[in-house]
């Protein structure tokens, strides 16, 4: 009886280990599938195939082509009426753009990019970044509009007692996650991190993203779907710039990126 119990436990352990191993392997190969998916999309674009010359793969042309891609994207961005983002990773700036004019520029303090971006060929970059990317979801620790609700005073006495107080100056630590088309992720984090409260907010923000990834991954695994790899860019900016940027952009903002 005891032997049977031990054997059952062993079987459960081994079975769980194998399942876990398969899950982890499927996560491990996800970047490969992601690249394949992008290559497939690129190769299916007949107009790109027509205008693309194999000489563009030459190393000496790389910076010129990247410059062209970014400017084409900026031009398309300028056709839109709203305020949008232009991220230039070469000169380390994040810009707010409206109708082709940069109205705000923030200098990137720190930058962390995924290894995945290095695996993209110039042809794939042409496909992905020669037009702005649409933001599909945003997660943030700051409010878009710091609205303060006030009831109208009944008389002048009550009005004088309710003298204005700068409630809108109470500021939370600023962290933003922008998820774009093709499932790319841009994380903007504040550069200043002094008090422990700021670190707690940062941890909470990152744990939320980790939990969401885990949930998505488990769901994909259980429904026998391919694991999704999310190429990420992490940008550190001064807090005030993050706040200005987030409050300026619309929900479905567009982003032009120079890699």
């Amino acid at each position, binding site marked *: 009886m005891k032997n049977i119990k031990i054997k059952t436990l062993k079987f459960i352990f081994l079975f769980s280990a194998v399942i876990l191993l398969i899950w982890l392997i499927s996560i491990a*190969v996800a*970047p490969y599938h992601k690249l394949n998916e992008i290559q497939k999309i690129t190769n299916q674009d007949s107009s790109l195939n027509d205008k693309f010359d194999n000489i563009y793969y030459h*190393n000496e042309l790389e910076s010129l082509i990247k410059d062209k891609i970014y400017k084409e994207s900026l031009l398309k961005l300028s056709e839109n*009426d709203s305020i949008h983002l232009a991220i230039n990773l070469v000169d380390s700036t994040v810009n707010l753009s409206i109708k082709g004019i940069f109205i705000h520029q923030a200098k990137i303090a720190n930058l962390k990019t995924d290894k995945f971006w290095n695996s993209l060929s110039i042809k794939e970059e042409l496909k992905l970044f020669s037009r702005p990317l649409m933001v599909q979801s945003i997660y943030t620790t700051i409010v878009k509009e710091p*609205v303060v609700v006030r*009831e*109208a005073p009944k008389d002048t006495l009550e009005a004088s007692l309710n003298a204005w107080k700068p409630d809108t100056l109470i500021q939370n630590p600023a962290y933003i996650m922008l998820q774009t088309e093709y499932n790319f992720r841009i994380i903007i984090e504040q550069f200043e991190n002094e008090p422990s409260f700021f670190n707690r907010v940062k941890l909470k923000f990152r744990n939320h993203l980790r939990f969401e990834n885990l949930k998505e991954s488990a769901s994909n695994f259980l429904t026998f779907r391919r694991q999704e790899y999310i190429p990420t860019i992490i940008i550190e900016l001064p807090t005030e710039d993050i706040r200005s940027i987030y409050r300026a952009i619309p929900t479905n903002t567009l982003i032009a990126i120079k890699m």
Partner: protein
Amino acid sequence: MKTNKPLNLKLLKNIHNSITLSKYNRLIFYTISRHTKQYNLYILSLVLLILIPLSIRGIVWMTITNNNKTLQVEEIQLTSVKQMLTKEILMLDKKLANKKPKSNYLVINSSSNIFRLYKNNELVKEDKCSTGSYILLKNGEDQQWMFKTPKGEFKILGKTTSPVWKKPDWAFIEEGLPVPSLNHHSRYESGVLGDYALSLGNGYLIHGTLYQRFLGLPVTHGCIRLNDENLELVYRSLTTGSRVYIY
């Protein structure tokens, strides 16, 4: 000569105890070693569980990051492509430059409460201003006003000197006063908007303020307040039709 020592009972008891103990020890040792073998197997499985996916991920990175093509081409061909690309970039630069306003323009950051004035696309002045407070004033269930500065591209629709403020309903409600009729004399107040006002439409103005200490803070009802000196500079620099970008 051999002498017979009396039996040491205490020693015998100790020996007996040690033999009995060692029996137990052996038993314990056997149990531990048996389990250790099993535990080792479990630990090994867990290590493999981590190492195998990590190695696979490593191999994946190595494979995909080394797939960039490199080409050997003739110098002449390369130069001509470079020239073509440079020409295309110049054309794009020209198109982008055409998007910039030809006249002077104003940029307002409503989050930091800062304005920037540009002349010929060069920054000439950057200073504090005040923008909307984001207060939502509620007067019962039916009436409410949101005091925020709108965002986007605007044009100067009109310019006035010594503007007179025609107080809207919310200005009375906010002060706990009864709302007078539409053209009642108490609605008109002069001197509170400064020496100049520039209209952005829908009642939004760029004007001066009596409350200079609040500059740099979000305190207005949606208008943009500047100090006297900056207001004069902006008034003289912008013409009707000049662009104002608010974000």
